[in-house]
């Protein structure tokens, strides 16, 4: 009983952490895909939103045009997928690893751009947000959270589970002892 209490609170924290990360990615994907200027949802309006996002990616001045287009068209659907994956809790160790790597990549690009003094739209949650200390702090906090979830997912996996299931959707087998 005395061991079960911290395990339960750890699981709840892990749940909250991964749901928070999932929410962030779902909101980010939605903000990048949503039609602008009061346009209705349609393939054409989503195409405009993605073309706008491509201009934001280009403003970082890191990639050639083809690579910018690939990133701009692949990232929002991938963020949507990652958000749903984190929310489901399936293979949390792997989803949190992918999330940590992705956020680490974002953070390093943002730090580089900020250090170079380029004044660009962040593009993190759609258009209109300027890259600055606020966005850097936010992205750094998300990276720390993601790292905590990744470490937590490994630690929880190693602990004995009275119930026999994790808080997430992944079943944790009972220990034989």
């Amino acid at each position, binding site marked *: 009983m005395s061991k*079960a209490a911290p395990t*339960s609170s750890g699981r*709840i924290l892990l*749940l*909250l952490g991964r*749901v*928070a990360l*999932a*929410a*962030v990615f*779902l*909101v980010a994907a939605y*903000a990048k895909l949503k039609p*602008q*200027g*009061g*346009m209705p949802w349609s393939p*054409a*309006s989503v*195409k*405009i939103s993605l*073309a*706008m996002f*491509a*201009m*934001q990616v*280009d*403003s970082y*001045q890191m990639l050639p*045009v083809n690579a*910018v*287009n690939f990133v701009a068209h692949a990232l929002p659907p991938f963020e949507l997928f990652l958000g749903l994956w984190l*929310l489901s809790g399936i293979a949390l160790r792997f989803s949190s690893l992918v999330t940590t790597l992705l956020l680490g990549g974002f953070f390093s690009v943002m730090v580089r751009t900020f250090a170079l003094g*380029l*004044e*660009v*739209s962040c593009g993190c*949650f*759609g*258009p*209109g947000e*300027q890259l600055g200390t606020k966005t850097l702090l936010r992205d750094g906090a998300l990276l720390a959270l993601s790292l905590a979830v990744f470490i937590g997912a490994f630690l929880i996996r190693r602990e004995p589970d*009275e*119930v*026999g*299931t994790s*808080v997430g959707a992944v079943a944790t087998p009972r220990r034989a002892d």
Partner: protein
Amino acid sequence: MNLRRNPISWRFLGSICALFVLALLVPWGQLLAPARAQTQAAASAKQPTKTSSKSAPKAAQAEQLGTPNKGVGSPTAPVTMEVFSDYQCPMCGQLFQQTLRPMINDYVASGKVYLIHRDFPLPIADHRFNWDAARWGTAAARIGKFEEVDTALYENVRGWGADGNIQKYVASALNPADFKRVQKIVAGCLTQTPQEFRPPAQAGQGCSLDAFINQDIALGKQVPVQATPTYVFTKRGQRLAPGSGFVSWPLMKQFIDSLLTQ
């Protein structure tokens, strides 16, 4: 309900927590606010900004010469692009040279895009002559010669940015008669330009240009412009979210094409 023994209860509790946290995390204000801001901004783009009571007489005086037209192309074009810019900002110059020039030659010339320059001189010590450059541009706009002077200012920013001799490049962009007209408008307005490069001002002559530049700045603050260059597209009266920084021409062309085919 024994949570410890019942995994279904755990999942139920987990789902409730997840939905609650999800609802808390969604930046509802941010998601809803842009729509309202875009509608207000679109309305302001259509109508000129009201000037303060102090600047009203100056603006009325300026009407005799005509309101400065800093637009390039046809105002009836399906897409309008406003660029908030500082003549001494390096990225503004890069955007003009590498992106806006090809756009002017192609999409503006063919009537697809109407490009509007908006002055947004930044309060940066290194940008010493940005206000005076904006005044020259605005003065040229009042006689319908904005495009020529705008190009000359961006192309020669290294020259006039070093010594403040803006009039040398404006003179090279205009015929002598037009240059004299612009000189007359701008005389008495220049504040940072060295005395030897200033056109002679008549006694008691006021400056009507700053009111127009301040109008642009007020429009920029509504966007809101946080850095230069900032660009805003409008399609069929609907203003899209602003973007900032340098964008290469192929990607801006792709964006405009997607707008035109929508």
